[in-house]
């Protein structure tokens, strides 16, 4: 276990090293920081002085070393726009994004497992075909379109009247296909403070309603993928000798499906899925923009628009870090489910 963690830590450091080089290269090559800091009227001589003072004339490696040492202490400099340490800006936006990702992940897991398993157990049932059809459509619709459709349907509401309104059955059918709207689709509402910069949407019913539409649209990217992955794996596992043997032992189908088959199905799903959940953090940019969700994604777009380079770089580093952490957790879970993986680091 310790060896496993040490090995993972080493991996993580390696990944962070690569990310930091990319981030630094961006910082080094994007625009002139002096330009951003001082006004038009400052004379060239003063600018040169400032450049020297900030170490911008040092060799690349020296500058990188300085950057890396600071980064290791979570010091990425000041945001030009907010005039605050970038880490403080990130800390203010991080909870919103993490909560959005957590809610989407929750939706993905609780929906994809039962749907995937069901459509593998009963591949010919009409409900399975329906889910498969929907998931194909889901994969091919871009997130922002899903988001806009959700807003139209559940935030604004639609009233369709293709059936005659003056009859009872007609208005009943009209009501059935129309939606009321009213779901919040802008911002976070009034999240409840927990500690520090952490405010949560999970603590109140109102907060949760604000989460629904953004989380659903974020989940809609991965959900079809997960359903199809679980279904495909499960179908394959059901063909295996050990499932046939379990049947020949007289074990009930319920136990075969949900213990023998599902546990084996989840192994590849955890591996692939873990990586996908990590990338959800990056996908939040689109969702947060459409719903004006005040998280890191929205902040990042803002930072790009205003060339707030330190903030961009910090965002990249933090997202990289989150990715590395989720992957490590996923590996740990995989090791717990799969007995052939010894958490000592070497395969048995």
């Amino acid at each position, binding site marked *: 276990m310790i060896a496993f963690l040490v090995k993972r830590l080493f991996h993580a450091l390696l990944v962070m090293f690569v990310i930091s080089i990319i981030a630094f290269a961006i910082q080094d090559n994007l625009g002139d920081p002096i330009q951003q800091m001082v006004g038009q009227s400052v004379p060239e001589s003063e600018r040169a002085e400032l450049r020297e003072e900030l170490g911008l004339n040092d060799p690349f490696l020296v500058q990188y070393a300085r950057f890396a040492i600071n980064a290791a202490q979570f010091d990425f400099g000041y945001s030009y726009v907010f005039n605050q340490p970038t880490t403080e800006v990130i800390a203010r936006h991080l909870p919103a994004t993490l909560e959005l990702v957590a809610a989407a992940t929750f939706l993905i897991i609780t929906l994809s497992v039962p749907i995937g398993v069901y459509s593998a157990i009963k591949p010919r049932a009409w409900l399975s075909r329906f889910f498969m059809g929907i998931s194909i459509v889901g994969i091919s619709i871009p997130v922002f379109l899903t988001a806009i459709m959700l807003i139209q349907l559940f935030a604004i509401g639609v009233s369709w009247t293709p059936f005659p309104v003056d009859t009872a059955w007609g208005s009943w059918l009209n009501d059935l296909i129309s939606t009321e709207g009213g779901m919040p689709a802008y911002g976070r509402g009034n999240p409840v403070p927990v500690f520090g910069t952490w405010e949560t949407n999970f603590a109140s019913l109102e907060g949760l309603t604000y989460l629904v539409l953004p989380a659903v649209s974020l989940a809609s990217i991965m959900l079809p993928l997960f359903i199809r992955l679980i279904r495909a794996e499960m179908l394959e596992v059901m063909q295996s*000798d050990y499932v*046939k*043997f379990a049947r020949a032992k007289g074990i009930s189908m319920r136990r075969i499906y949900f213990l*023998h088959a599902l546990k084996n199905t989840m192994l590849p799903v955890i591996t692939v899925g873990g990586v996908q959940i990590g990338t959800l953090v990056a996908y939040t940019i689109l969702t947060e923009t459409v719903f004006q969700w005040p998280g890191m994604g929205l902040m990042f777009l803002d930072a790009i628009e205003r060339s707030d380079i330190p903030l961009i770089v910090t965002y990249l580093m933090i997202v990289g870090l989150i990715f590395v952490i989720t992957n490590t957790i996923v590996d740990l879970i995989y090791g717990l489910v*799969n*007995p052939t993986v010894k958490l000592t680091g070497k395969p*048995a």
Partner: protein
Amino acid sequence: MALLEVNHLDVRFALRLGEVHALRDVNFTLERGERLGIVGESGAGKSVAAFSLLNLIAKPGFIAGGEVRFDGQQLNSMSERALRKVRGNRISMIFQDPMMTLNPVLSIGEQMLECLKAHRRISSKEARAIALDKLYQVQIPSPETRLDQYPHELSGGMRQRIIIAIALLLDPDIIIADEPTTALDVTIQAEIMALLLELCEKHNVGLILITHDLGVVSQVTQRMLVMYAGRVIEQGPTREIINDPQHPYTQGLINALPQMATPGEKLNQIRGSMPSLSNLPSGCAFHPRCDFINRADGQPRPACTQQVPGFVESGNCQVACHMVAELIDKEATDEARLKETNP
């Protein structure tokens, strides 16, 4: 009445390109404690036969006709629920590849206890005791530690012993073993076979042994079936068939054994290969490969392209072959004529 009785069993696979007739008119019986061998080359339908006994043929396969009677019950028309009480309890199975048969993510203990608990209302403690006893019987070193181990921690031979222990857990009446030693190291094959045989004998368990190894069949079984392209073409007491095979295919199989070859010469073989089940030759499915009839001019005998007349009795054996049928007919008429001329 026999313990197990298979009558006119007919199994098909409904494939997109048409129906494949995997078993046709298979008939055999098994008495309590009897050992029956099933031989035939790859694709003959041996595994299909084994799985269909417990109605375990997976879609798109299905039992299209005939019946499997076990202890007075008709298995093929039973509900899943009732069948589950037979599977693993009164009839259990051993598969070919021990590396694939055990679930990789469940411990040996879990896989043994679940089987006991599926069939008996017993506590975990009692189940554990039974499992340990069976592991002891299959001569596994330190059985207690095995229960907590996972399949990947054990060798192939070890796993097959565990699978045999699982097959014996509920003291079944019959064990169906589908090539139980094929996937194992040659040095372990004999060991596992001997163990299986010893335990079946000791507990009076009937054995249906599917194998490619005629040597094993002749040593272990009392009766045998020879299958070809989904049909039984010869069946009877093992000793009679091995010593005096009637069907040209069986003769070919026995001739192909290494010990039948003349030293220094090539091994004998049956030329050609078994036809695909979806594209069978007319009449006797074996006629294009049959040495017996094609010797003269390479043309099949017209009679052999007609449907085989079913089994004829030859000694204690039953054979499905035109040639053998004609031969027996001729003998009978000769005998009759002899009687007429010499009253």
